[in-house]
């Protein structure tokens, strides 16, 4: 599904990713754990196509296509989804308008018929209910006045509506209390399927109690230092990142 090979990326001339290799197959959930500044968010932004990152080396193949050559909207249409660590507020654009525009833009790029207002409303109502979101949250401007938990639920709602093939969850647990985390995790787990893969990026093991990964990778200093099964997360929780040369207390 996605094959990352020797990926190097820089920001303002400073190399952040120093050769990432990662292959994710359909249905797999991978977790990337790493301390602050290890390059976790850079990896997610590079994959989603944000400006400001220079790819100096390496390649990313997504369903056999060159992901790095695609515009962000083309990546979305191809089935990539980034759940943002900090969902962006967009005053003046209603959440429903945004969701409908996004869904229909993706359907259009895929050559599928666009949904009319009634079809869309039916779909979105069903999804909001599952995430304990209110109609009122749909009417509000995108993420404006949303609490941290509401923003993350809104990200999950978008994922549920857009039905991506590959979702990157960037620090989805940050800023969430345990109840909010459970709701979001349930929403995410409901989307797990043999055709859909996920890359869960997190600093802490806590999230992985709720979204249990098949594979865990440790990212530090711009490289994957170690890979293993879900037990690796527990080990990290116990010992921290010290064995990878990271002094988090500093």
């Amino acid at each position, binding site marked *: 599904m996605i094959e990352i090979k020797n990926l190097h990326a820089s920001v303002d001339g400073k190399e952040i990713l120093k050769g990432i290799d990662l292959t994710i197959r359909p249905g797999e959930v991978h977790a990337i754990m790493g301390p602050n500044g290890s390059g976790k968010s850079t990896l997610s932004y590079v994959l989603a196509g944000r400006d400001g990152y220079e790819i100096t080396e390496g390649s990313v193949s997504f369903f056999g296509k060159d992901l790095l050559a695609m515009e962000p909207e083309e*990546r979305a249409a191809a089935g990539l989804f980034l759940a943002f660590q900090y969902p962006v507020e*967009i005053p003046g654009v209603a959440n429903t308008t945004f969701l409908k525009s*996004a869904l229909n833009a993706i359907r259009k790029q895929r050559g599928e018929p666009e949904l009319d207002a009634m079809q869309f409303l039916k779909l979105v109502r069903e999804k909001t209910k599952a995430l304990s979101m209110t109609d009122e949250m749909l009417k509000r401007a995108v993420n404006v006045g949303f609490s941290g938990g509401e923003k993350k639920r809104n990200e999950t709602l*978008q994922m549920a509506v857009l039905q991506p093939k590959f979702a990157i969850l960037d620090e989805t647990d940050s800023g969430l209390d345990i109840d909010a985390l459970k709701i979001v995790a349930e929403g995410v787990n409901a989307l797990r399927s043999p055709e859909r893969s996920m890359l869960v990026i997190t600093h802490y093991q806590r999230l992985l109690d709720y979204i249990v990964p098949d594979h865990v990778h440790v990212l530090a200093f711009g490289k994957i230092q170690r890979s293993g099964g879900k037990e690796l997360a527990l080990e990290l929780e116990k010992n921290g990142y010290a064995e990878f040369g990271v002094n988090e207390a500093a």
Partner: protein
Amino acid sequence: MATTTLTKAPRGYDPAAAKPFLEQLDRVKGGLPGGGLSWLDGLRAQGRARFAELGLPTVKNESWRYTNLRTLDKLAFQPATDAGDDVRFDVLPTVRADGATGPRLVFVDGRFRAELSSTAGLPAGVELLNLADALTRKPDLVAGHLGRIAAPDDLALVALNTAFLADGPVLHVPRGVTVEETIELVFVSVGSEAQPTAFHPRGLIVAEAESRAVIVEHHVGLGSCTTLSNGVTEVFVGAGASVHHYKIQREQADAFHLSHTAAKVAGKGVYDNFILTTGAKLSRNEVRSVLDGEEGDTHVSGAYMVRGGQHVDTTTFIDHAQPCCTSREVYKGVIDDQARAVFQGKIIVRPGAQKTDGYQQNRALLLSDTAEIDAKPELEIYADDVKCSHGATVGELDDDQLFYLRARGIDKATARGLLIGAFLAEALEEIAEESVRDAFQSYVADWQNAR
């Protein structure tokens, strides 16, 4: 500079620029409507004298620092002829969703077109007619008002308009009458292939005490000739009356649109002005609202979208002359390419105008590196118990917002459109009349789609 001729004109004016206009005036003045009425002859003479003294303002004039009218010197504008009377229209602009013709007056190059106009649906006692007709048949209807707010011997362009004073819309709403139908005033700039054409529409709106009216001005262009519209409108808002005065200017690319609107609001009266600008090469909307009685309320707002080499100037003056009045100004503009916008907003709170509540906000969105905005808010406060705030921001489209939308599959152009629309929506929300707001929204969409 040593060879410059010394003149006695006030600093910041070019009296030589008056000459071609005055020569034209001398050719047409014999045929101006209402000639022989001494008050009217006097008014025009005052305008002529003042304009002859001043000429056109230059960039040395504080109020015209950012808007240069020198181009007008180089164009030999001629008065509109009756050639425009033959221009036919498939469809005239309207804010009415049903497309039916409500009460409306149509002017082509400043000249009234009776066969396109209608007074259908107006309550008894309401007068809606063109000024030339009023000056000929009912001069008493306008004699007490013309030139009373927009003084003929003050501002150069008002003086020029007054010198040529001939035609334009006149609305008189008697005491206590509510006009349910939206009154539409349609101004079409056509001009002539032969030479640039100038016209000076003069409007008068009188809303007596406790009356109400909604007026929409459409300024559109037909073809691609060079035209100059130098309009003046005076608005009298009686005690407890409310006048909602909306304007959309989308004239042709070679149009010059200069407009001066002066309102005077009596106690508990409401004057609500909103101007949407997308057209003309150079435009300036000067709006002055004097709160002349206690508990008056004025809203002076607008939105503009300009691109290419367009220049749009918004100059407002809100005069809190009496206590306990409120004023609200919200302007938002989108500037692309090499276009330039000017916002000059002055609020004065006179001595004794206590409990004034004034609010001004001016926000611009620059879509290119070469787009420009010059903003000059000015607050002069001579009372001590007032609440006055103003804010100005200039920004670009937010990269994070753009990326967020694109990451959800929305292409770049659509994402930009959504953000621009959202930015302008806040200004359009100032329009209280829903049908007008919807129509103006669609003009915003048209502008975006025209890329």
